Each structure stands twice: as C-alpha cells, then as structure tokens.
C-alpha cells in the first residue's frame, strides 16, 4: 500500500495507535469482526488522506476521528440506540451506596466483575460511549477528546457527566441484582 519511504514511515507511526483504535472500534461495534473491518477501513482512509494530517498535532485523536466517523457513516441507518440521556436524573453511586449503609469501595467496586463493567459501557448510547472510551479508557484530555469527536469541550464535559451517571446507575442495578448490595432501587435517587 505504501508507495514511498515517507508513506511507510507514516503508516508505521499510525500503527503505534492500533490498540486505541481497535479497543474503540470493539466497544463501539460490540463485535470483533466488525471492529477489525472498521479499523482496517479507517487505516486505509488515513493513508489516503495523510496529506490532511498536520505534523505535530495529535495523530491518535486524528485517527480516532476517522474511525468514529466511519462508524457513524456505516451505522447511521441504525441509530435507534442513540437515545438521549438528558432525562436520566442525577445519580451519584458513591452517595447512593453510602446512604444505604454500604462501604462504597470495599463492598461494591472490589466485587464488580470486569465483564459487567464492559457491559455497562457497551450499553451506553454511542454518543456517550465514545466519550467514556476516549477519556476514561484511553486517557484523552477533554481538549483531545473534543478534537477527535469534532465537538466543543463543553459538549465533551456534559456528555461525559451524563454517561458516568448512567454507567453508575447500571453498575448499581447490577450490584443489587447480583446481591452485592441490598438496595432500594436506582429510581429513588438523591436530588
């Protein structure tokens, strides 16, 4: 594919970010085969449009932007799960657990299964899921996440806030259902 040493060098540098792209694609598509297709297409597109990459800027954010734009193009016909989280209400897991007499860290976090955490992330609406993937999983700054998503920093912050509320609610519901805590339901939230 690469036709010159410069293109090969560009491809090599881009491939150093492969794990980030694969993790993101896997959590967005929730399917390993679709994730590989998406990542491959993203890399081919990145090489085709490498002239639009500005040296010295964040290549990882640039690559993630290509991948997530392809994801939205490909799945724009099935955005039914892109529901709004505007109405989820305030939910602070720490306060909820403490009010119920549990020790939030020792009684709950230490007992949550990784598979349940992944499930909670993967059931977030994609617009909110991708912010959690960038900031919490990949450690992006708000600024770099905003660049990757093509939105203002304020939008990153508000989506992240709502995503975390929903994530904490899902984890709480799982903790109650699995008997980790004896709760009274996530609907009765502190205001």
């Amino acid at each position, binding site marked *: *594919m*690469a036709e010159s040493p410069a293109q*090969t060098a560009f*491809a*090599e540098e*881009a*491939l150093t970010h*492969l*794990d980030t792209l*694969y*993790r993101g694609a*896997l*959590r967005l598509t929730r399917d*390993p085969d679709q994730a*590989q297709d998406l*990542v*491959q297409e993203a*890399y*081919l597109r990145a*090489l085709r449009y490498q002239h639009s990459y500005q040296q010295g800027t964040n290549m990882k954010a640039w690559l993630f932007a290509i991948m997530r734009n392809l994801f939205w193009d490909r799945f724009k016909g099935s955005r039914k799960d892109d529901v709004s989280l505007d109405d989820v209400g305030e939910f*602070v*897991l*720490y*306060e909820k657990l403490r009010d119920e007499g549990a020790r*939030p*860290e020792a009684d709950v*976090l230490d007992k*949550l299964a*990784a*598979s349940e*955490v*992944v499930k909670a*992330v993967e059931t977030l609406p994609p617009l909110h899921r991708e912010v*959690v*993937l960038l*900031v*919490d*999983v990949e*450690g992006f*700054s*708000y600024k770099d996440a905003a660049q990757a998503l093509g939105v203002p920093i304020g939008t990153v*912050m508000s989506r*992240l*806030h709502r995503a*975390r509320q929903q*994530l*904490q609610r899902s984890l709480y519901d799982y903790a109650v259902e699995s008997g980790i805590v004896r709760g009274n339901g996530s609907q009765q939230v502190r205001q």
Partner: protein
Amino acid sequence: MNCKDCSEKLDRFVDRELSSTEVLELQLHLESCPDCQDHYEFEAHLKRLVRHSCDCDTPPAFREKLRQLLT
C-alpha cells in the same frame, strides 16, 4: 471550598482537568474532609476499573495483516 464545590469539581480533578490553583484548593479541602476524600478515592477507583475492564489488545494476526497491507 466546601463539600458541594468539591463534589462539583471531582470529575475534573480525577480527569486532571483542573487548573493548578483549583487543584491546590481541592487538595486542601480533601485533607480536611474524610468524606470527600473517600468520595474522591471512589471516583478514581471507578475510573481505573472502567479502564482496566475495557482494556484489550489487538489480535496479533489482525495486527500483522494490517501491517502487511499498509507498509
């Protein structure tokens, strides 16, 4: 800083998005408030839990296939 201010800034503190002045103010509050300190440790723990749970490496065969395709 009071507990309400601290709670509102906790996300940005965990995400290392506060200014150095805000960090100092918040750290001073945490040192004097065990409950907010517990809350902070909970949020930091939860963030690590999400990161570790979602961590996975690219399958080696796919990595190699992509390398051959691109370089």
